[in-house]
């Protein structure tokens, strides 16, 4: 038996997109929060040193905005990502938690301190002496950044450990300080300043006092620009720390799909920051709100989607596949891979949450079994409905209705793990046939559209660049 869980299936968009949507909201809110904490520290230092108490008015406004924006939305969507990955990839999140529980617990300490700190920072402006408040603000900034330091190690391990060491030692140190870590940290540290600047402009746009507006904007804008430049440089370094499967996906699908949008966002953000730096008084809500939406949606969504997609076929540490199967042995933890066991006995026999009447394939239940197997083995990355946006399988087979053709793909490239971004799914022939029969039946029953007459080829998955 395998330690598999029941499956949560979301038609059309899949549980992956649910996770992605929550994740993007969280990234925008949390990066803004961490970046803003350093902006506050820089601004307050200036206010203290140059005796410019009016700057504290801006900090208070931004802080109150941050309470709602980051500490409601950000702090709820943080655990929200957890809930989303729990239901989408229970074994994935379990693997991460059992490797990193103490790191996560340490992050929780910082997170708790940070939440208390933001209330203290905002509500004690003018209620405690200035030097004490400045200490509060700097400690808040450092504590906020520490939450990022700790979570990035876990996120970058999800991509891969980068060496064989962790598999042999099982040590959290080797998992956390992986090859990808510092590059990833650099990207996020730089981008947090960009997000904080862009959100800071939302707040600054409402300032009536022209001197205060100029003063604040001319501190924020260069910090955002420097952060953006640093982030881009680190992004190029980050690309050099990726595993081969990620590089294949990046070059084949992701750069063609997202590359232009990312360049556009980079240029638009740079132009926006430069322009506002040059003409602070021109900053109005009519400009700041659309720019915030463009940068957070067009900038963060592709970046997060790319990072999620590049990990394929794994969900964590290159040892857990997206479909929850353990891909390989991890001697350091006493973990054994499951692919060969499945090849020998089949998912129907090994998966604990298969109804008894479906464990044996009969002509009557073949399509039903095929559907169940497709959902268990494929649905974490693929929708099963024709036309669905999440790499739907019927379209990937170009509407093929030939069971043998579909079975040849499953029993060929998929069985041997020949596609770098797909898991090795090696199933007994009756299970392959059941999945093939199900996919063929879906294509048979799909609404006919122009071009559907041409059935796909077994290599369609490799050829079609619409990931």
């Amino acid at each position, binding site marked *: *038996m395998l*330690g*598999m*869980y*029941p499956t949560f299936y979301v038609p059309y968009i899949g549980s992956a997109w649910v996770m992605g949507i*929550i994740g993007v909201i969280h990234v925008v809110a949390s990066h803004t929060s961490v970046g803003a904490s350093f902006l506050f520290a820089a601004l307050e230092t200036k206010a203290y040193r140059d005796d410019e108490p009016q700057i504290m008015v801006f900090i208070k406004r931004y802080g109150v905005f941050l309470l*709602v924006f980051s500490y409601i939305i950000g*702090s*709820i969507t*943080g*655990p*929200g990502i957890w*809930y989303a990955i*729990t*239901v989408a990839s*229970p074994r994935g*999140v*379990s*693997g991460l*938690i*059992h490797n990193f*529980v*103490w790191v996560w*617990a*340490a992050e*929780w*300490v*910082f*997170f*708790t301190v940070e*939440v*208390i*700190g933001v*209330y*203290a920072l905002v509500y*004690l402006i003018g*209620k*405690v002496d200035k*030097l*004490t408040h400045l*200490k*509060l603000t700097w*400690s808040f900034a450092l504590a906020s950044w*520490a939450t990022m*330091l700790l979570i990035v190690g876990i996120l970058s391990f999800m991509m891969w450990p*980068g*060496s064989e060491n962790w598999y042999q030692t*099982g*040590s*959290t*140190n080797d998992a956390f*300080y*992986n*090859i990808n*870590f510092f590059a990833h940290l650099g990207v996020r540290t730089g981008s947090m300043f960009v997000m904080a600047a862009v959100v800071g402009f939302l707040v600054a746009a409402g300032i009536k006092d022209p001197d205060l507006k100029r003063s604040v904007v001319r501190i924020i804008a260069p910090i955002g620009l420097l952060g953006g430049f640093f982030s881009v440089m680190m992004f190029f370094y980050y690309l050099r720390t990726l595993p081969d499967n990620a590089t294949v996906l990046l070059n084949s699908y992701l750069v063609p799909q997202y590359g232009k949008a990312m360049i556009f966002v980079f240029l638009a953000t740079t132009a926006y920051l430069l322009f506002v730096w040059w003409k602070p008084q021109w900053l109005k809500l009519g400009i700041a709100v659309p720019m915030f939406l463009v940068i957070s949606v067009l900038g963060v969504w592709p970046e997060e989607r790319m990072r999620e997609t590049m990990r394929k076929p794994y969900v964590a540490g290159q040892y857990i596949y997206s479909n929850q199967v353990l891909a390989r042995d991890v001697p*350091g933890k006493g973990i*054994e891979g499951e692919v060969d066991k499945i090849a020998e006995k089949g998912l129907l026999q090994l998966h*604990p*949450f298969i*109804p008894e009447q479906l464990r044996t394939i009969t002509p009557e239940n073949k399509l039903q079994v095929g559907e169940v197997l497709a959902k268990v083995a494929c649905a974490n990355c693929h929708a099963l409905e024709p036309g669905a946006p999440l790499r739907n399988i019927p379209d990937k087979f170009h509407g093929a209705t030939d069971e043998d053709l579909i079975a040849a793909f499953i029993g060929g490239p998929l069985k041997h793990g020949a596609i770098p971004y797909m898991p090795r799914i090696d199933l007994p022939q009756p299970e392959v046939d059941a999945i093939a029969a199900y996919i063929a039946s879906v294509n048979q029953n799909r609404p006919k559209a122009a071009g559907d007459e041409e059935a796909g080829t077994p290599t369609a998955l490799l050829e079609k660049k619409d990931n």
Partner: protein
Amino acid sequence: MDIGTVMNTMRDPAGIPAPVELFRILMIATWVFHIAFVVLALGAASLAIYAFWRREQSPYWTGISIAMTKVAKVSVSLLIVLGVAPLLFTQVIYDPQWYASNVLSARWAIAFIFTLIVAYCLWFAFYYGNKEVAKRHIGFYAVIALLLFLLDGLIMHVLSYQAILPGQWMGWYAPNGELDMSGAHLHAMQWPRYLFIISLSAPAVGFYLIAYDDYLKRRRDQNPDYLAFARRLGQRIAQYGLIVSLALFVWWQFDNPASTGLVWLPGGWAVAAALAVLLFEVTYFRDRLHGYLFLAGGMVMLLLLAIWREVIRVAYLAPFGYSVVDEKVNADWPSLALFFLTVAGIGGLVGGFYLTLLYRAGRVEGVYQADRTMSAMGTGAIVILGIWTGVFFLYGIAIWASNALTY
């Protein structure tokens, strides 16, 4: 398949990085703080709404409504952040149960996030509008927010309760043999348990009001009559609330199946006894005991409850042959040290600095001037954070470099 065997197979094969009892203690201890702010948030929110509708009768009700709105606002923030730790430790030792339960009600687990965001945003809308002069319609924002908070509490209750009913998982997942992967249903509720925990919101806010009086009465800019009003109100709410809580707890005790043997275990009745002691104190010693003592007593009762929840979990799962003491341990001492040093250094010094500063600043009129101790704590907070960050990077670079050489 035998669900006990299934659960034991579902344990994460990586094992756990420290002895199981350590995780158990942390899970129980951190839940106490989480649930304290849950019940305080619900109690404060309920009272804020009630006082809002009574504000025309007395300015004291206006004051109570505004104050409790703020208390609820901060409490929700804290209950969220403090909820992360017990959730984390639960997933370490009760991973099969928690994940299975979540997947079986997956849409609700996701809905929890979005309803909580909506509820909290509505509460902030109420907070911004709830001033000396306020429009009546904002009260409806608060009512909707409170209903959503209660719904979120119900979702969490269901996820926890389903987790200890593994014998029914397959029936929920495949009713009549037909698989249902939608996660669209809440499958099991234990109403007395849910209602009991919700009912604790009354004593929580009652005790808070008593402590509120004790905290603020040294400030000359506070109206003593208003504070006395708040104290009396708190005493009444706590008194009646504890009676209701006690009744609901007894109902919960007898609602547990006889086969679990829980009904007459002393652990459960210890919770009841703690409730009875609190009721006795708030009835007969309400003016003689400091408000902070009531809060401390409430925390003791919550600790007993947290332990009792764990006893219940063990009792429900034992017949299936599942026990957390069987967990495989793959000790990882460096990361354990990271956590405990962070708790001591960052939690203790930085968190201590913030809390002490907030506490002291709130007790003075005008601007609080830090004394030498506070000033040293502030400097110490920055220094300890600097040291922590420096060690993090130096230690990390050494490990990263040695791993990079084998890349």
